[in-house]
């Protein structure tokens, strides 16, 4: 007697069509990633901006490498990037460890704070730090001078050390996010074994925990180096006054120069690309090792908190201090200055004569509303596009034995090797170079979407991949055994399990896409007004306090989205048993891709 007399499995398109569709999709994305970059590289060997004309020349490179300032800039960039990455790694991983592995009070609440640091754009955080830590008029220095009677300046953000600190504090959340899962995966028995052998906590940390998360640390460091090296707000806002030039500031300058600027910038970008490509390869190797270390946890492992009566408070203070300096202080400064008519720190306390005039100006300017709507819509569309693309790429890269899996991973991570500005130049030239394409899509919003989607693939991939890896192969195999097609298994089993990671990634992408300028500055469609431009307008005509008011107002949307995303991501989540590690054999969830 059987329950259901052999219910037939319905016809489905899957096994033949799906692999073809997916392969096509990957090819399209790969082209969108590779071609603009290739064009930039070609451009660096030319002296005109028309692709394929003007002959091949090494002139740009000889000028670039023969210029002594290039080497000084490179040196600055290396020191700045290395220092910033090291500091970010330290801050981020210590915070991650404190909040996952030690019984720090108010852990759950504190874990929101590193993310909040991300929400504030650099154009809010950097000027705020100037107000706090500037050499001549920084509030800290004024305090030391006026109240404590010290002479000279205590801190100076306009220095290499200052820039490193800025980069370290504001990039730490990236390290934090990467270290979260590996640290949570450390089995308590490993720590207990160390304790039974007589090791104190510090020893255990260095000898047991550190090696376990080493691949994650390595992948975090490579990512941090790339991110810090390609950020241009800090080198421009803080580096220029401090007299410290970095590579990205140089590229920015070249693009600004009317004649042959683009070719020279392309040469600079190509040199930059060489370095970052190496870093991306290192990163990919490191993440591959990360995955192997996931299996160490073993079946049915548990993760428990370390009880440390004194340390927990030390770490608590540490995390709170980080949150203050990284988020609360900049936010506070911005809010306070938004109520000022002007910000002058010459005579004692700059915070007086509060007024609502700035907010009045913000609310009566129609562009603010249209800017928020446009940027919001753009960000939403980009977020959906990125999450979709990355999920497909992540599944192919991590859960199949397809011959395209390495390519899928490479395609998703490759865009990070190019600064957003450079990519958008490449995309601009790509579209222009292909006559039919230009007529169809040039100047349309679609191109803006493409640029931002490609630029954000790596971030989303990083956030989603670790969650996808954690899904045991057997859960997907069980779905197949139940008769479900590949697509169904992904949609009904894989995606619900990684839902929190998807929403978290969506929140991060939305925030970034909302304020993104570099990727789209040359691609902005007509009759479109975006928030970064509205900000710039206020900055130019209204000064810093009015800009602060605008920033506060325009921040409401991304903040709301972030909270919504967290809520949706964790909706209906029940306490689940600790995620069991994927089998060390790494058995694949085999799409019938091998036939392609």
């Amino acid at each position, binding site marked *: *007697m*059987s*329950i*259901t*007399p*052999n*219910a*037939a*499995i*319905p016809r489905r398109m899957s*096994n033949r069509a799906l692999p073809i569709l997916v392969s096509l999709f990957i090819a399209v994305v790969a082209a969108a990633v590779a071609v603009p970059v290739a064009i930039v590289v070609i451009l660096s060997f030319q002296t005109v901006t028309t692709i394929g004309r003007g002959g091949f020349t090494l002139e740009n490179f000889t000028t670039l490498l023969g210029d002594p300032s290039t080497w000084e800039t490179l040196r600055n960039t290396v020191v700045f990037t290395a220092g910033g990455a090291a500091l970010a790694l330290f801050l981020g991983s210590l915070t991650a460890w404190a909040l996952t592995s030690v019984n720090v009070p108010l852990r759950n609440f504190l874990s929101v704070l590193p993310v909040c640091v991300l929400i504030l754009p650099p154009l809010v955080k950097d000027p705020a730090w100037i107000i706090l830590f500037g050499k001549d008029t920084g509030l800290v220095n004024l305090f030391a001078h006026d109240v404590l009677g010290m002479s000279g300046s205590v801190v100076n953000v306009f220095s290499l050390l200052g820039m490193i600190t800025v980069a370290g504090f504001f990039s730490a959340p990236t390290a934090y996010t990467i270290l979260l899962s590996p640290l949570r995966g450390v089995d308590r028995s490993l720590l207990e074994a160390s304790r039974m052998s007589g090791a104190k906590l510090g020893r255990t940390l260095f000898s047991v925990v550190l090696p376990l998360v080493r691949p994650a640390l390595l992948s975090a460091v490579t990512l941090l180096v790339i991110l810090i090296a390609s950020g241009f707000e800090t080198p421009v806002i803080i580096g220029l006054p401090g007299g410290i030039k970095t590579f990205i500031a140089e590229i920015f300058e070249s693009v600004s120069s009317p004649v042959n600027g683009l070719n020279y910038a392309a040469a600079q970008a190509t040199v930059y690309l060489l370095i970052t490509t190496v870093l991306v390869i290192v990163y990919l190797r490191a993440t591959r090792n990360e995955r192997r270390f996931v299996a160490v946890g073993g*079946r049915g492992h548990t993760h428990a908190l370390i009880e440390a009566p004194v340390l927990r408070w030390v770490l608590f203070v540490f995390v709170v201090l980080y949150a203050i300096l990284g988020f609360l202080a900049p936010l506070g400064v911005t809010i306070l200055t938004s109520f000022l008519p002007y910000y002058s720190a010459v005579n004692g306390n700059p915070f007086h004569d509060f007024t609502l005039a700035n907010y009045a100006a913000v609310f009566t300017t129609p562009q603010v509303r249209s800017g928020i709507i446009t940027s919001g819509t753009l960000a939403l569309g980009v977020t959906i596009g990125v999450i979709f693309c990355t999920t497909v790429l992540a599944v192919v890269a991590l859960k199949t034995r397809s011959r395209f899996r390495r390519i899928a991973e490479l395609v998703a991570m490759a865009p990070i090797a190019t600064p957003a500005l450079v990519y958008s130049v490449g995309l601009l030239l790509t579209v222009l170079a292909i006559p039919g394409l230009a007529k169809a899509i040039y100047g349309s919003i679609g191109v803006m979407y493409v640029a931002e989607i490609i630029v954000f693939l790596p971030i989303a991939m990083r956030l989603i991949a670790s969650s996808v890896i954690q899904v*045991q192969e*057997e*859960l997907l*195999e*069980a*779905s*197949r*055994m*139940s*008769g*479900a*097609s*590949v697509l*169904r298994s992904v949609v*009904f*089993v894989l995606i*619900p*399990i990684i*839902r929190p990671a998807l929403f978290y990634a969506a929140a991060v992408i939305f925030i970034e896409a909302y304020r993104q300028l570099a990727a789209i500055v040359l691609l902005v469609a007509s009759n479109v007004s975006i928030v970064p431009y509205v900000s710039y307008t206020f900055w130019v005509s209204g000064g810093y306090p009015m800009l602060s008011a605008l920033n506060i107002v325009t921040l409401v949307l991304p903040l709301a989205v972030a909270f919504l995303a967290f809520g949706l991501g964790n909706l209906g989540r*029940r*306490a*689940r*048993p600790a995620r*069991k590690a994927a089998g060390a054999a790494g*058995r694949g969830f*085999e799409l*019938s891709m091998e036939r392609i």
Partner: protein
Amino acid sequence: MRVTGLTKDYGTNRVLDDVTFEVPEGSVCTLLGSSGSGKTTTLRMLAGLERPDAGEIEIGGRTMATRGALVPAENRGVGLVFQAYALWPHMRIFDQIAYPLRVRRLKRAAIETAVTEAARMVGLEELLRRYPSELSGGQQQRVALARALVFGPRLLLLDEPLSNLDAALRRQTRLELEQLQKRVKVTTIYVTHDQEEAMAVSDRVVVMSKGRVVTIDTPRAIYDRPTTVFVASFVGASNILHGTVGNVVGDRVEVVLPDGASIRGVTPHQLRVGDPAVVAIKPIDIALRGDGPDHGNAVPAEVLSSTYIGSQIELVLRAAGRDFRVPVERWDTHAVGDRVELLVDPARVSVLHSEME
């Protein structure tokens, strides 16, 4: 179902070498072997989760795998109960079991009926609204079982179903599985390393080692009459002795041991005087002089240790130059250093040609 000549290589490592066996419809077969024997790989090939490099698989009259063609797992209609159950953490039990039916686009009412029926069969009808994290290990296994059976598979595969359970639960679950199988009458294949489990549930046992099929036979035959040294040592935890054939009369053989003592036993092989031979004696068949009748094999021994295990005492004795484990009654009083004699019925002694690995 039938497999013929299954072969698989991982790089230079041949994990399956020409595996061939057959399982009649409605019967239970166990793949028995230690880790690395290839039993799990074979199971996964039956499921469709691994692709053979060579060979054929036929299930229920349909060819599932052959040179150049492979029916993917989702189209085979085979039920698989994973060792770790593989329940989806985000679905209620009802939905787990209903999943295969929803895939097959059954109507809601039909699904409702089938799921309730399946749940009742495994004794879970109370727990349908729960999530897996709220269930015990044993209950989770039943869910996995119900999920594998609900769509009426033509083949049921179970991967080490009893390994994760404690002794008491193991026995109970084994019985329940047997009953279930008899009710549903689905062709069933177990994979296990536990020979007691294999003996208990199967109609036939396929013993595997290093990717090869060593022997296929009924449990009784394998236990009582092993035909290879491997099977003899693996099944029944036999004590193994090496010696030379001294005397052969029909299937009765006398083997001379290195220290001069001799043992008589039966052999399935053609042995001649002078052949190197292996003698396999199960601990359970060994008695000490005074505890039982004298059958004709007596070997002097000395007690090395005596360990109380609750239901019995395990003695370790040295005889003929090696150590023997012998279980005795729990009120046995032998002590370390005692000299005794080992007695064993020649009919219970297997003698094999030492090259029949």
